[in-house]
Structure formats: structure tokens, C-alpha cells
């Protein structure tokens, strides 16, 4: 992850510098050294700075942070190789005003605390505490209750802490007062008032405000409540402040202190201890390692924590002494610390460090080495905004102000430090100083800057990271204004750091010019902000343009998946197509065009047509349901392919239309397939029939698919379709008719006849072709490869089979019409079927018996007819075939053998011709007669066998009836389980006994077996072995 180096940052910028001695008008003979500092912001434009000196003086300065910086963002301040950088502030007292000088004696002013609650300043000097009003207008008063003070701390009210939340932030002043009293009362014994008697005897006066401070004195702590008295003269000793105090013994050697709510954190040479003002208990926090210097700590007002220092490490603990977050690691042991909203500012030997509160990372460092050695003191108004940070060197006061987040980012962007800028935004966002929208805003701004820097990939990466940027903001870069979408483009200029949008070509031309200029300047030794890479390897215009387009495509592509307003969606898709086209990305164009899209056809039509992207255009038309335009294109394309591709296609065998080699005509095929796809959905009959022809020419299957599609809403009219199908295209016609009849269950006899006739014609043609081929010399056939001969044969065979099946299956066609077609042919089976439909039994028999010589089929047919005279007819045909054909005696004999019994011998004898050889005739007659006798005897046997079974059955019945059963009192009905007693009962053959009632209810169809199963006597007849007559 890129990190923001401290040298890139300028969280603080100096705006004023002042020598307090000079500004106070002190003569150079009486120099003063700065020993302590505090800051209080009186208003937005006025911040008071209290400077405590080594000689017991307090200088009050007023600074105006809104004044223009004397050396606006000092560039040397924030630079340097990651190391500290010297701050150079033009020595200027502008914006700084000297207000007053006061004296607290001659001893060092060790610490100044602004008590903003009561509008007073507390000063620690020479072990005594002094109090003075905030503008030093009145005399300084000493607080007499304490002396030899080593450290002083102001109480920071905490809402959390013990149950005694006595000084919550939101508490009213009265509450603060009373709870404060409670605190002091709680803390101890006698409340000692300074001056006029014990305050407990005085009722608390309304509207009084107070604050608490703790002072460390020798072996004890003194807790002091400072209260504004109503009138100045009442406690004139203390500037109108009355003082309550309470001593706590046993805390020794405090060098530094912080008071958070109920806890006072005390730093001694040994370490840090937490003293609870509620329980009075002391808990060690940690001890200081050897030779680590005196304890230093800084209460952090905002978070109600305290920063404890050990060496160069800062540890934050809360009011219960628990650590909070990780440690700060400073570059040098800090002398002084200030708390800014999300930063901690520390000063060390010669410089300032600014660290993030959240991560502890150092974000800026400023060297003040040129101001000489000596410790630096830092202070700000941590109860206010804290954005004015004052640093004091021993002799100078330098005022810094916080650079606004926006300015920090802008300044980085101006320097083209884009990564750093983004880093900063992310950091500010995680610190809660910046909104997510702002992050998006900056990403977009950075993107535009990069775009004008010709770094298109990076630019788009940033665009994609911006959640607020609108895709339409990119439109003016693609299509010159004004255009269809101009009105939609938000006029968002961001921070105005980049030129207004212009078409990419222009952006690139300008960028290239800038690069050239920069190269020229560089030769002349002038620094520029142009990318080093570009200076070293100047990019070509074409490369840049391609990169620009590819990246914008990438951007639009992502945008497609967002929820967009319809007009924006249209813009995105149309411009995407526009860009694809400019790079001739045919696949992408076609993919976009053929998928769900929002392209505006009118914007693209002419363009695509001109550049010959006809397929794309056709897809586009189709996706917009402009079918006829799409079809027109496919039709033209198919024609063009046909012309263009014949040349380089490998010639397939001439005249073999069924075997189209795929490769040679794939373009055509695709055109036809696409057209077919459109037509399959379409209900526009005219359109369909208009395009059917060329599609069928290319691929009959596709044409069939069009005609037989079930996707369309309104079906086509068969008569129109049939009229439109080219008479040459018999197969198409047949396939359509077949679909009508078989799939659509069409029962119109007209179409049945048409279908039959068409099939019959095809068969006739095939037969004719065959016969011609056979007539022809065999050389031709040899030349044809075997497979194609086979293919054709099998095709012919299939058609014939189809015809036969249909003729058999349908009763709706007109057989005579079909017969007309095949009259002349040898299609005997077909004819037989047809005659049969017409009921011409004799002709059918003739065909079957004589033409096809299929005596089995003939006999079968006789059986179907079902009359005995049919057999006689057949026999007649066999014996007298006529047309000079020899009688078919074998067949006749077979017939007599098989069906002799159903033939009348007399009739047979009559039929026998006198020409019949006697041997055959006698054989025939003998067989017939024998068959009859045999048949008779067989009958007798069956009769006798049946009688035997009957007898057997009767015997068994008798046995059954003579069976005995013994019943006693316990005997029950197997069905209803009732006692039988003397009731009438029934016994089944399986020995189960039921009462008569059950028998009646169940009829005699079932018995009740012991295991509850019931068996129907009728269904599962139980045969006892004896019943069966074995043959």
C-alpha cells in the first residue's frame, strides 16, 4: 500500500512569527526567554497567546489565524528528504498584536493554564500559584492556600468514570457547582475557604461557575475549586474568584499531573500513578525505566485520555489507567505535546513532529533548527478547535494554523502527487474528517487530471473508484458537443484543476504539445510537472489514442452494469459501440449489438454502414426489433458471401446440393441462420415469405425451421406458405406439410393429398433417376464416390418409406390423385395401399399375389377382409393369373393347406382348372380333405377334454360338500370374530369359517383367512391338484 510520506504533507503551515520582547517594546538590554506557553481562542479570528518568561513575566499576544499567510505555504517547510525540514517564515509580525505585559514576580513562569470556564489564567511561578483575568487587565493575585507547588493540573471533566458523574459535559452550571462541592465534601473533612469564612455556611449563589485544579505540593496534593464570585469586590483578593481547597496527603514528588474526571494521574521520577479522588486509592500505571528523564505527560482533552511519555515513546491511557491504542514512537523525546483533533503535535530538540492519533504515524515534521537550540514549547487551545498551534523557541513565537483538508489535497494535486493525495483522502476519511462522497470527488478529480496527463489507464482506475462520478461526464470526451447527450452532462468542474472536457483527440494533441514544451524546457533546465516517462519515451499519438479508447471502453463497460437513467444508458451503449468501431473491435461490436443493449440505432446506422460493419448493424437492427432492416442486410450479406466466397472455396461435387461443404459457405450459412433466427420469432407473414427463398437456397433446414417455428405468436397461413414455396423445393414443401399434418394435427384433406402427391412425385423422380442411371453406362456411377451413391439411395429409400407410411396411416388424402401420379410406375406396394383405401379388393389381391408375389401379404389381406370368398378370389388368381402368366400352383397349394378348412371344397373343385396336372390337383384336394377331417377330429378331442374337466370339477365339489367341521363354544367367525354359537356358518375351501352374516356381506367372493388376508375366489381360483386334467 502506498503510504503518504511526511514530506508530502503539510498539516500545519506557519502564518506568523513574532519576537515577544520586541513586540512588547522591551529594550534589547532586557532579553526574555520563553519558558511556558498557553493558547486560548477568543474567536475565529482572534487567538490569545500567553507567553511565560524566565523572569516572571507574562506577555499576552493576539494572533489572527485568518490573516493571509506572510509567506503562503512555505515550500521549504514541507520538503526535505523525509528528514526534518527547516521552517522558513519571513519574519513577520503581521497578524500578531501585542496586548499586554504582566509580571508575577521575578521567578520563572513554569506553567500557564487558561481556565476558560472562569475566564482566568492560572500561573505557576516559583512554587506559587497566581491568578489573573484572561486579558491581564487586573493585578495578578497569589493564591495563598498553597506554596512550593511543583506541578499543577486542571481537571478535565469526564462523563465516564465512577458512578459519581459529577461534572458531565452537558451538566448545567449549577450542577457543576453543587457537584463540585459534593466532590470536595466527599473528598474530605473541613472545607477551608480562603478569606471570608467557610463557604458551606453560605448558600451557593446561582450562576456561579467554577473549575478545579490540582496542585502538587511537597508530599501532598491540594485540590482547589476556583469559583467566580458574584461581585468583584467580594473577593477582590483573587480577582473575584473564591477558592476552596482540600489536601490529600501521601502523594510525593509529583513532577507532572493530569486530572481526568475522578482520576489524577501523577508523574514522579519513579513513574506514573493513578490516584482516584473517589476512593482515595493510588494505583501504579507503570514505572519509568532507569535514566529515562523526568516524567512528562499531556492530558488529551478531546479523548479524555492522557499521554504518558517514556523516552521517545508515548503511551495513551484512559482515566482508569488502562492503555488505549498503540504507542506513539517519536523521533526524539518530546519536550512538549499539543492535542489537535486527529493529530498529536510534539516538539523535541529542534523540531516539530505531527503524528496521527489513530495510527501513530508521523505525517509531518518541521525543523526549527535555525532558531537555535533550546527546548521548544507547543501549545494550542485544546478545548477549542485547536487549529492554531503556537510553537515557542526560547526567543520567538511561531504561529501555525491547520491547513484545511481540501487545501492539503489540492496542494498535492497541483504537485501531481496523485497517489499521495488519495492516500491522504483515505486517511482523512478514516479519521472521520472527510466524507465518502469527498473521497469519490477526489478520485474523479484525480482521474480527470490523469486523463489530461494522458495517463488513461490510471485515469480510468480512479474514475472507477469514484462512486459519485456519472458516466455522462465522459461523453464529451468521446463525442464532440453538442450532441444528443450534451444536456445530460453535469457541468461538474471539480476543483477546476483540469481543462474543460474535449474530444480525446484534442486532449491527446494538447498533451503531446505539453510534452514537447516540457522537453524543450527541460533542455533549458526548467522543471516541469510532465511525467518523466513521457519525456524519456515520447508516446506516439496513435498509441495514446488507442490506449485512451481502450480505457474509456473499460470504463463504459463497467458503467453498463450500474443502475443508470435510460438516456444515460443509451449514451453509454451507443458510445461504447462508437468506440468499439473506432478500434474495429468487430467481436465486441457484434456481441454488444446482439445482446440486450440500449444503443440508439439512428446514431450508429450511417456510421456502421459506412465502415462496412453490416453484421453489427444487422444484429443491432434485430436487437431493436427492426426485423426487416436486419433481414435485408443478412440477405445482401448472403449474396455477397456467395459471390466472394465461391472463388476460394474448394469445389464440391457438382450438382450435389445435399452435400454442402460447410467451410466454403459458412458466411452464407451464418447469414441464413441469423435471418432464420429472426424469422422464427416473427409473425410477419409477408416478411417471412419474402426471405424464405434465399434462406432455403442456402440451407433447407433453416427454411424448415422458419416455417415450422412454434415461437411466433400468430401462425402462418398454410395456403400462403405453400403458394410461396418454390415448386423446385419439394423437400421444403414436404417438410412443411409433414409438420402441418404430424405436429399441428392438420386434418384438412387437401393438405393430406398435397403431401401424399408430393411424396409420390419425389419417389417417382427418384425411381426415374435410378432407372436412368442404370440405363446409363456404369462409368458415371464409378466416378461418383460410393458414399454419395449410398447417401442418395438411402435418401430415396427414406422418402419411399415415408410415402408408404403416410399412405397407410392417413385416411384423409385422395387416393385417386396419388394413384394418378404413380399409375405408370412399379410402386406396387403403394398402389396396393391405395387400392385398399379405395376398397378395390381384387386389384389389391392381384398386386399382392401376382405383382409382388407376396402370398403371405395376400393371405393376410384376405384375413383382413374376413370373408371366405376372399380366399377363393385369391385361389382363383393363383390358378389363373391371366396375362399369359403361368398358374402359381405352389402358392395355391399353400393357400389350401393354410386356409383349406375355411374354403368350400365344392368351390375349390370348381376353380381347379382342367389344365392342372392331376398329381398336383389330387395332392391339393387330398390335402384339403385331410385338413377338414383333421380339423373335425381336433374339435372332438377338445370336446372330450372339456368334459373330463367338468367331471373332475363336479367330483371335487362333492368332496368339498362332504367335509366336516367341528365347532365348540369357543369357535368364532374368522371375519367378525363373533362367537358362532348356534349361528348359521359358512366354510370356505381354505378351511376358514365365517358366520353367515359375514358371508352375505362379503358375498361369496372372499374368504377370511386366519392371518387376515382376503382372497377373491373369482380372481385367484384355487386349483386343487385333482381338478386339473393333465394332457
Amino acid at each position: 500500500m502506498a503510504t503518504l510520506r511526511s514530506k508530502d504533507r503539510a498539516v500545519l503551515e506557519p502564518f506568523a512569527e513574532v519576537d515577544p520582547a520586541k513586540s512588547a517594546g522591551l529594550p534589547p538590554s532586557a532579553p526574555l526567554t520563553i519558558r511556558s506557553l498557553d493558547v486560548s481562542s477568543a474567536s475565529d479570528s482572534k487567538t490569545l497567546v500567553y507567553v511565560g518568561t524566565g523572569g516572571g513575566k507574562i506577555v499576552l499576544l493576539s494572533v489572527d489565524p485568518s490573516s493571509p499567510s506572510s509567506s503562503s505555504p512555505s515550500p521549504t517547510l514541507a520538503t526535505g528528504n523525509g528528514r526534518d525540514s527547516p521552517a522558513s517564515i519571513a519574519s513577520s509580525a503581521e497578524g500578531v498584536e501585542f496586548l499586554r505585559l504582566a509580571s508575577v514576580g521575578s521567578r520563572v513562569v513554569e506553567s500557564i493554564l487558561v481556565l476558560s470556564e472562569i475566564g482566568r489564567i492560572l500561573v505557576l511561578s516559583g512554587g506559587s500559584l497566581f491568578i489573573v483575568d484572561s486579558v491581564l487587565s487586573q493585578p495578578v493575585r497569589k493564591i495563598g492556600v498553597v506554596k512550593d507547588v511543583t506541578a499543577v493540573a486542571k481537571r478535565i471533566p469526564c462523563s465516564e468514570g465512577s458512578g459519581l458523574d459529577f461534572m458531565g459535559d452537558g451538566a448545567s452550571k449549577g450542577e457543576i457547582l453543587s457537584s463540585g462541592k459534593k466532590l470536595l465534601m466527599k473528598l474530605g473533612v473541613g472545607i477551608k475557604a480562603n478569606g471570608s469564612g467557610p463557604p458551606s455556611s453560605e448558600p451557593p449563589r446561582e450562576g456561579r461557575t467554577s473549575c478545579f485544579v490540582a496542585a502538587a505540593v511537597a508530599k501532598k496534593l491540594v485540590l482547589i475549586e476556583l469559583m467566580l464570585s458574584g461581585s468583584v469586590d467580594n473577593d477582590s483578593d483573587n480577582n473575584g474568584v473564591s477558592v476552596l481547597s482540600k489536601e490529600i496527603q501521601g502523594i510525593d514528588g509529583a513532577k507532572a499531573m493530569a486530572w481526568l474526571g475522578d482520576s489524577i494521574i501523577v508523574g514522579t521520577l519513579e513513574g506514573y500513578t493513578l490516584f482516584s479522588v473517589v476512593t482515595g486509592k493510588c494505583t501504579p500505571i507503570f514505572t519509568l525505566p532507569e535514566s529515562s528523564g523526568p516524567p512528562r505527560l499531556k492530558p488529551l482533552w478531546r479523548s479524555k485520555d492522557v499521554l504518558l511519555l517514556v523516552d521517545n515513546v508515548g503511551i495513551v491511557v484512559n482515566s482508569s489507567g488502562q492503555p488505549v491504542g498503540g504507542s506513539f514512537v517519536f523521533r526524539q523525546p518530546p519536550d512538549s505535546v499539543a492535542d489537535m483533533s486527529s493529530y498529536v503535535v510534539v516538539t523535541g530538540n529542534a523540531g516539530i513532529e505531527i503524528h496521527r492519533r489513530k495510527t501513530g504515524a508521523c505525517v509531518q515534521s518541521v525543523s526549527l533548527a535555525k532558531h537555535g537550540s533550546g527546548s521548544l514549547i507547543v501549545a494550542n487551545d485544546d478545548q477549542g478547535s485547536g487549529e492554531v498551534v503556537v510553537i515557542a523557541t526560547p526567543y520567538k513565537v511561531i504561529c501555525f494554523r491547520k491547513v484545511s483538508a481540501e487545501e492539503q489535497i489540492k496542494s498535492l494535486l497541483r504537485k501531481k502527487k496523485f497517489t499521495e493525495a488519495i492516500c491522504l483522502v483515505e486517511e482523512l476519511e478514516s479519521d472521520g474528517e472527510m466524507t465518502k462522497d469527498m473521497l469519490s470527488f477526489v478520485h474523479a478529480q484525480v482521474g480527470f487530471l490523469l486523463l489530461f496527463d494522458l495517463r488513461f489507464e490510471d485515469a480510468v482506475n480512479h474514475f472507477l473508484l469514484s462512486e459519485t462520478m456519472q458516466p455522462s461526464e465522459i461523453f464529451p470526451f468521446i463525442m464532440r458537443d453538442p450532441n444528443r447527450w450534451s444536456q445530460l452532462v453535469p457541468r461538474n468542474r471539480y476543483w477546476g484543476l483540469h481543462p474543460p472536457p474535449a474530444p480525446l483527440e484534442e486532449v491527446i494533441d494538447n498533451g503531446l504539445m505539453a510534452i514537447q514544451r516540457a522537453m524543450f524546457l527541460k533542455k533549458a533546465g526548467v522543471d516541469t510537472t510532465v511525467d518523466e516517462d513521457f519525456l524519456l519515451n515520447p508516446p506516439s499519438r496513435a498509441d495514446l489514442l488507442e490506449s485512451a479508447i481502450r480505457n474509456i471502453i473499460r470504463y463504459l463497460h463497467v458503467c453498463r452494469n450500474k443502475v443508470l437513467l435510460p438516456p444515460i444508458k443509451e449514451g453509454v451503449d451507443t458510445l461504447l459501440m462508437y468506440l468499439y468501431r473506432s478500434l474495429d473491435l468487430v467481436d465486441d461490436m457484434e456481441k454488444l449489438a446482439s445482446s440486450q443493449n440500449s444503443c440508439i440505432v439512428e446514431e450508429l446506422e450511417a456510421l456502421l454502414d459506412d465502415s462496412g460493419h453490416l453484421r453489427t448493424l444487422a444484429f443491432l437492427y434485430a436487437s431493436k426489433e427492426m426485423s426487416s432492416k436486419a433481414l435485408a442486410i443478412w440477405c445482401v450479406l448472403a449474396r455477397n458471401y456467395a459471390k466472394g466466397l465461391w472463388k476460394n472455396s474448394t469445389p464440391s461435387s457438382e450438382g450435389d446440393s445435399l452435400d454442402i461443404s460447410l467451410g466454403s459457405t459458412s458466411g452464407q450459412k451464418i447469414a441464413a441462420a441469423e435471418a432464420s433466427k429472426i424469422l422464427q420469432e416473427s409473425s410477419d407473414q409477408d416478411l417471412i415469405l419474402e426471405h424464405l427463398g434465399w434462406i432455403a437456397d442456402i440451407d433447407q433446414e433453416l427454411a424448415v425451421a422458419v416455417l415450422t417455428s412454434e415461437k411466433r405468436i400468430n401462425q402462418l397461413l398454410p395456403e400462403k406458405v405453400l403458394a410461396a414455396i418454390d415448386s423446385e423445393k419439394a423437400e421444403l414443401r414436404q417438410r412443411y406439410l409433414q409438420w402441418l399434418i404430424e405436429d399441428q394435427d392438420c386434418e384438412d384433406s387437401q393438405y393430406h393429398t398435397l403431401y401424399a402427391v408430393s411424396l409420390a412425385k419425389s419417389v417417382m423422380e427418384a425411381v426415374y433417376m435410378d432407372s436412368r442411371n442404370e440405363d446409363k453406362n456404369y462409368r458415371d456411377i464409378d466416378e461418383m464416390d460410393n458414399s454419395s451413391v449410398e447417401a442418395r439411395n438411402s435418401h430415396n429409400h427414406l422418402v419411399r418409406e415415408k410415402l408408404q407410411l403416410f399412405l397407410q396411416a392417413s385416411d384423409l388424402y385422395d387416393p385417386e390423385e396419388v394413384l394418378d401420379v404413380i399409375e405408370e410406375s412399379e410402386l406396387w406396394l403403394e398402389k396396393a395401399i391405395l387400392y385398399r383405401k379405395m376398397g378395390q379388393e381384387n386389384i389389391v389381391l392381384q398386386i399382392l399375389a401376382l405383382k409382388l408375389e407376396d402370398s403371405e401379404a395376400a393371405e393376410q389381406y384376405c384375413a383382413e377382409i374376413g370373408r371366405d370368398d376372399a380366399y377363393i378370389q385369391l385361389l382363383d388368381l393363383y390358378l389363373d393369373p391371366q396375362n399369359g402368366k403361368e398358374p402359381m400352383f405352389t402358392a395355391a397349394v399353400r393357400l389350401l393347406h393354410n386356409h383349406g378348412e375355411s374354403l368350400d371344397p365344392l368351390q375349390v373343385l370348381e376353380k381347379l382348372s382342367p389344365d392342372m396336372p392331376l398329381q398336383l390337383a389330387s395332392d391339393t384336394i387330398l390335402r384339403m380333405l385331410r385338413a377338414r377331417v383333421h380339423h373335425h377330429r381336433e374339435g372332438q378331442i377338445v370336446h372330450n377334454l372339456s368334459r373330463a374337466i367338468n367331471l373332475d370339477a363336479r367330483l371335487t365339489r362333492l368332496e368339498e360338500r362332504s367335509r366336516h367341521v367341528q365347532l365348540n363354544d369357543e369357535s368364532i367367525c374368522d371375519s367378525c370374530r363373533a362367537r358362532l354359537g348356534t349361528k348359521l356358518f359358512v366354510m370356505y375351501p381354505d378351511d376358514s369359517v365365517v358366520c353367515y352374516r359375514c358371508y352375505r356381506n362379503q358375498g361369496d367372493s372372499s374368504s377370511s383367512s386366519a392371518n387376515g388376508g382376503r382372497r377373491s375366489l373369482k380372481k385367484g381360483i384355487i386349483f386343487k391338484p385333482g381338478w386339473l386334467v393333465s394332457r
Partner: protein
Amino acid sequence: MAGAGNKIRNAKLVLLGDVGTGKSSLVLRFVKGQFVEFQESTIGAAFFSQTLAVNDETVKFEIWDTAGQERYHSLAPMYYRGAAAAVVVYDITNAASFTRAKKWVQELQAQGNPNTIMALAGNKADLLDARQVSAEEAQTYAQENGLFFMETSAKTAINVNDIFYEIAKRLLQGQPAAQNPQGMTLNQRPTERLVNASSCCS
């Protein structure tokens, strides 16, 4: 997510052990899933937080990764005081670090909260060739002192999530949901609780 049974329990966890045993590396692995060969030495303490789901409960670890330098030893109690769990880390390739780890355990037993769950992690388990502390020895020691022990490797991630998961499990076992509705710091185990309860009611 915010089901009644899915409260987030905060648990303060501290890592203790000699410098260079891999405490920071273990945390980095657990929190960010990363490992760096040249981990900067920790100064003071680093803070991380990471949540871990155990069954239908979530434990939010507040992890203090301490420095381990002798100079800042005095800071350690601040971190382990009130910790729900402590992971004492040694380096299996460094016998001295194991001795140091035992010292830490002793200190925790003497100064720390008796309810703190203690884990012993023998880190750098990927460096088997350089092993100086056997797993058996450490295991025996851990058993005798009521710690649970795992050999880990921040580098290969072996057992890193496991050790934290195990801690979370033990924390939750010791702290049934009903008794901790506010999601406060987990630092008590039920056995002790019973003892405490009887003494506080008497």
C-alpha cells in the same frame, strides 16, 4: 447478524515474550494474514483488533503486542493487568527465549489476574532444523502450569488462527452469554466465579 445469540464480546489479549520471538508477526498474520521477513521491532506496544466468530458468537480481540525489551519491562503489567488472555511467545530455535517465556508465566501467575487465560506459543515452528526447544518439553511445562500450548509459525500460518480460536473458545466457555449481556471484558472463568460468588455473599 444482530441476533440475540450473537453478541460481540470484547476481550483484551496481550502478547508477551522476548524480543524477536515473533509476537508482532503472529499478530500480523492473525489480523491481516500477512508475514514480513523484516518485521520492525516493536516499541512500546502496538494495538490491533480482530473479531473471530466462534459458533454463533463473536469475540472481538483487543490485542496488545508488547515490545519485549527489558528496558520497557515495567510497562508490561499495564498491558496484562485485566487482560482476558495472554499469549506467551518463545522461539523454538532459541532456548533462551523459552527460559524467558517461563519467567513471563511466573510473573503472570504472581502479578496477573488469576482468571487470565494463558497460552504458550512456540513460534517459528517452520524452522525445524534449528529447533532448540522440544515440543514435549514445552508441552510438559505447559501442562504443569495450566497453560495451553501450541507450536505456531507466523511465516507459514500454522496454528496461528487456531491458537486465537482456542482462546476465544475458552473465553466463551468461561463466560456464558446470559451472564455478560453488555459485552464487557471477558476475564473470568466460571470455576473462579463460583468461588468468588460464595465469598462475596458471605
